[in-house]
């Protein structure tokens, strides 16, 4: 297990290093002088020279890369062009909003999805199973930002059940503002998770330890809830870990649609103001998050199911 963990995190680290390097080269490969872009056309030559030296742009590319990595190690992602604040601080200011949204979305959809899936598996080919299957297939495909826009239109603008913009104040205010965005992001996951749980549940129900549990006269309810479900939700863990990237992507859109603070809004605002250090910082941090969550999901899986440890 320890060996597996070390190898898995080694791979994650390697991926991160390559990703950061690709990112770095991409920025440099773009035509145009970054200093000129940052300072605008009216900057004096002295100012340009100073920023060039500050960003080490007069050094050879490999040295720039090393400096970049050195700064990264110290958690320094550069300085915001406009406010002069550290990019790391700005990004980490916004991150909690995004994480709260992602967490709320996956929580409700996982609970509902697991419940639906387990029920469907315990009562296969009944009407509810059929309805659940139909809903799953239909909702799996719905892109989060379209659902966000339509729910904004229906529930916030027309019915006025929920607030349309912002993140709210206080616990209840925040919760109230979370409902619609979390609904939009989670909707496609309900069906996906339900299908996953149903399939793995049906598989587990055929295994011998379930037969043994039944033979002991344990109630069907307990067999399903305790013995089968515990194993059947394993794939959900992996899927959520791997799905972190999709969740982040959906969160970006939900934040724009509902005008919520967060990583997505930060990135979009920075793109319109051409504030490159913030764009790159946000992309790097979200990539790091994604890589870490994928690795973590693999580890949890390996811990719960020893068979997963041998596969790389």
């Amino acid at each position, binding site marked *: 297990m320890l060996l597996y963990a070390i190898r898995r995190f080694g*791979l994650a680290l*390697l*991926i*991160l290093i*390559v*990703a950061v390097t*690709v*990112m770095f080269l*991409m*920025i440099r490969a*773009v035509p145009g002088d970054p200093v000129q872009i940052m300072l605008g056309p009216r900057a004096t030559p002295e100012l340009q020279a100073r920023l060039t030296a500050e960003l080490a742009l007069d050094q050879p590319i490999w040295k720039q890369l090393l400096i970049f990595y050195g700064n990264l190690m110290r958690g320094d992602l550069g300085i915001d062009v406009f406010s002069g604040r550290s990019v790391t601080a700005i990004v980490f200011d916004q991150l909690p909003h995004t994480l709260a949204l992602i967490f709320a979305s996956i929580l409700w959809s996982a609970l509902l999805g697991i419940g639906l899936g387990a029920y469907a598996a315990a009562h296969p080919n009944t009407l509810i199973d059929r309805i659940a299957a139909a809903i799953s*297939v*239909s909702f*799996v*495909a*719905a*892109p989060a*930002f*379209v659902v966000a*826009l*339509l729910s*904004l*239109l229906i529930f916030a*603008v*027309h019915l006025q059940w929920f607030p349309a913009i912002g993140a709210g104040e206080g616990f209840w205010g925040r919760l109230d503002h979370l409902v619609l965005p979390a609904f939009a992001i989670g909707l496609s996951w309900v069906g996906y998770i339900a299908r996953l749980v149903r*399939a793995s549940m049906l598989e587990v129900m055929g295994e011998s330890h379930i037969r043994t549990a039944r033979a002991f006269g344990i109630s069907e309810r307990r067999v399903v809830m305790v013995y089968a479900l515990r194993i059947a939700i394993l794939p959900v863990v992996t899927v959520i870990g791997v799905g*972190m*990237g*999709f969740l*982040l*992507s959906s969160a*970006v*859109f939900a934040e*724009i*649609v509902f005008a919520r603070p967060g990583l997505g809004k930060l*990135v*979009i605002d*920075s*793109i319109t103001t*051409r504030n*490159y250090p913030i*764009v*790159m910082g*946000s*992309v790097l941090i*979200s*990539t790091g998050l*994604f*890589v870490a969550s*994928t690795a973590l999901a693999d580890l949890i899986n390996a811990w719960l199911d020893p068979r997963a440890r041998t596969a790389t």
Partner: protein
Amino acid sequence: MAKSRSELGQIIHGVARDPLGLMGLIIVGAIVFCAVFAVWIVPYDPVAMNIKDRLQEPSATYLLGTDQLGRDTFSRVIMGGQVALKVALPAVFGAMAIGLTLGMIAGYGPKWLDNVLMLLFDTIRSFPTVMFALAVVALVGPSLQTVVFVVMATSIPTYGRVARTQTLTLRNSEFILAERSMGASMARILGVHMLPNIIGVLAVLAAMDIPTVIALEAGLSFLGLGVKPPTPSWGALLKDGYSLIRQTPWLVVGGGLPIILATLGFTFLGESLRDVVDPKLRKQR
């Protein structure tokens, strides 16, 4: 797998027998029809402004009303389908072609090359798609080509990995060994013998990938970072509709429903295709 005409006919027949597949076939058929014949279907020029008739409610003259510049929403929805397919098809086929080639090389070539390619795939997959797209757009500016490039780059690994797995399972089968013992080149083995056995699975993946691509294009255009105005993309409709959401719901509905419909159609079709082409795949996803 679609090698001969009769087999292709069988696949279509199989899909049409499945109710979901038939529905998918009809929706996708309708969208493709509208996109191809868009120029003859649209009642008005989708980019022609008519300030006098701005923000009209739906009526017999304007089926879905008009936007803030007096452009006919229905015409823009129909034309938007053409734009969506113009992005989705080249991107998906490009990604499939490149992913297929790289994946087969990874599965058949030397071990070190396999490792390098896999690391590359894993790296590309480690960027959250939208974040990667935003970074690229921030660097090179928004355009139709940028969207196609981003979509291609982010979906190459999916095709590559599947092609690699398939190649690995086939590389030691007897017909490949026989060919190799007769001195066939790697290009011949991969192109003539491996390809026909892999392409079916990848085609299914492609069908299921199209909705994601359509959604990504619409999403970027919604953020104002995709195709440039006044091009009538579904995402651009949503962008206009979002700012006018308190005045008129029709732009959001007109932009949103086609996206959901297209997603549904391609998903139904893809799922049904998968069951017909390769029932074993069902378990993997």
